[in-house]
């Protein structure tokens, strides 16, 4: 069975997981951000007693409901895939992921069954303050329920608070708090949720711009833009800071990913940050070709980003693959050798345990513990296997950064035009506002591409490569389910867009 491992099947399983995760992530960030915007709108209504704010709240709440309904449970498909396509991985991380995902499931159920119902059914049935409380609980709860899946993902990027049990072949949790508050988890949660706030603000801005272009619901549109732009500007500014923190964390914990994000092959002191550049797609680790066909760098800024210090050394792909003695970086070849030792001693441990040879199993276990931190490297064939696809990671990172820099300017301009009372006359800006809705989604997806493609070839950083995490199924089986999902997701997406567009076309309820 094991002799039949086929990389094309692994890649189909990868593609299927990426498709599902990217589809799921169309809905999640909008839910995260729109729930807060609805809470803001309703808070203003409760504070002012102005019925127009109630109409605004109800309108955006309906769009929130549509997004939530189409997106709900799409994440469960990822769990199906864990059990079928990624059974080895699923088994190995079960102890780490079980608790967070169970908490998320229970939390989400109670949240949805109580506060969602109060929010949608409770108008005129519960007190104004109770309704407002429910709306805020949905907003806070949505973000909190995102904590757990982001913690699980962060653990894969930076596995802490655990120990590998060679008898059960499982990573077992040793310290829950270390897993929950790992620097990767903290920066990922803050960056991801705040970017969701930006997307939702762009969504509200874009639809409101469309109303202004059409000359419909102008008061609602301008009020919505005012709230969304303030929230969006604050969130987008915060995203820049959390992005900086996330990049610093990546530099410290996953330096290979940072090197790929910047297309940096040869490490350097006072390293420059690429402002613009075209990657040389023919470039491979260790060769003499230039990394870029064209590039413009901001001197020293990558060193500052990576180490909080100008002039500091930032390792490139080549340093990390082939080692750099001067900078104390161990080569992948050396780690592969240690990894092979770990795997050999693990096999010896299993054999001794099966034969009930206590002495031999203890000896093998002691040796395994010496090498276990590099266990995953033992599955690589060539040192360059440890490098992720550089071009994809680089372009996704720069698209995300460029868009993330553009969005605060859009919110600022919207506030400026509102202040000058000329917003409805700024037709070019209104078109830009509409265009920002798809751009917001592109930035979201690009962020996850950086996170996930940039950490290849690892399912669990340094410990488990993707091709070992995978179940040994036939390629045809995975291809079949890939296309089923593609069809299902396309239909659901069309349904959402149609229902959403129809609702936007109708606009808010009449007075």
């Amino acid at each position, binding site marked *: 069975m*094991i002799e*039949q491992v*086929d990389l094309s099947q692994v890649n189909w399983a990868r593609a299927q997981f990426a498709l599902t995760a990217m589809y799921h992530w169309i809905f999640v960030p909008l839910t995260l951000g729109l729930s807060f915007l609805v809470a803001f709108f309703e808070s203003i209504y409760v504070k002012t007693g102005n019925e127009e704010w109630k109409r605004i709240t109800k309108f955006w709440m309906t769009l929130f409901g549509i997004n939530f309904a189409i997106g709900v*449970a799409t994440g469960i498909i990822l769990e199906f895939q864990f*059990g*079928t396509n990624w059974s080895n991985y699923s088994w190995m991380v079960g102890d780490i992921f079980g608790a967070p995902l169970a908490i998320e499931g229970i939390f989400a159920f109670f949240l949805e069954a109580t506060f969602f119902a109060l929010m949608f059914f409770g108008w005129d049935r519960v007190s104004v303050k109770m309704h407002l409380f429910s709306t805020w609980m949905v907003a806070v709860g949505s973000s909190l329920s995102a904590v757990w899946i982001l913690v699980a993902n962060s653990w894969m990027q930076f596995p802490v608070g655990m120990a590998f049990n060679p008898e059960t072949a499982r990573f077992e949790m040793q310290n829950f708090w270390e897993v929950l508050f790992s620097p990767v988890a903290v920066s990922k949660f803050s960056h991801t949720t705040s970017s969701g706030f930006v997307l939702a603000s762009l969504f509200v801005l874009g639809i409101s711009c469309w109303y202004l272009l059409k000359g419909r619901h102008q008061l609602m549109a301008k009020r919505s833009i005012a709230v969304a732009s303030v929230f969006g500007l604050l969130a987008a500014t915060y995203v820049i800071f959390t992005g900086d923190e996330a990049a610093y964390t990546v530099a410290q914990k996953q330096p290979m990913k940072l090197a790929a994000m910047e297309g940096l092959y040869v490490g350097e002191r006072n390293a420059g940050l690429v402002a613009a550049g075209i990657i040389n797609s023919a470039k491979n680790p260790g060769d003499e070709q230039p990394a870029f066909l064209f590039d413009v760098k901001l001197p020293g800024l990558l060193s500052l980003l990576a180490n909080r210090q100008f002039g500091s050394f930032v390792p490139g792909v080549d340093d990390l693959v082939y080692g750099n003695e001067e900078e104390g970086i161990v080569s992948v070849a050396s780690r592969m050798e240690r990894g092979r030792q770990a795997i050999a001693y693990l096999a010896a441990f299993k054999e001794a345990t099966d034969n009930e040879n206590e002495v031999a199993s203890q000896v093998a276990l002691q040796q395994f513990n010496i090498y276990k931190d590099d266990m995953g490297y033992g599955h690589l064939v060539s040192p360059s296997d440890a490098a992720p696809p550089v071009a994809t990671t680089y372009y996704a990172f720069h698209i995300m950064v460029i868009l993330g820099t553009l969005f605060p300017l859009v919110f600022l301009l919207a506030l400026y035009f509102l202040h000058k009372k000329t917003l409805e006359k700024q037709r070019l800006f209104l078109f830009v506002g509409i265009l920002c809705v798809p751009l917001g989604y592109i930035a979201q997806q690009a962020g996850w591409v950086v996170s996930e493609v940039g950490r290849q070839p690892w399912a669990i950083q340094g410990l488990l490569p993707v091709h070992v995490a995978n179940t040994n199924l036939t390629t045809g089986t995975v291809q079949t*389910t890939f296309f089923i999902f593609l069809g299902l997701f396309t239909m659901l997406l069309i349904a959402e867009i149609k229902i959403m567009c129809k609702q936007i076309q109708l606009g808010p309820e009449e007075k």
Partner: protein
Amino acid sequence: MISNIYTFYRDGFRSMRVGKKLWAIIFIKLFIMFAVLKAFFFPNYLNTNFATDDERAGHVLVHITQSKKMGEHND
């Protein structure tokens, strides 16, 4: 109390407009996911092929100690 909760949900569902279409989509989606995809296309590999946790652990251990290296193909 229970009667009030029941009435609250019943009236809420009855007064829905867009919501009815959304619930229909949710139910169809859940049906496809659990009754079709999960049942026919996504069996839990280890639970289906192995009876005990010891067997599952043994299988995974064999896989991670004997699996082919990255980049090796069958052909």
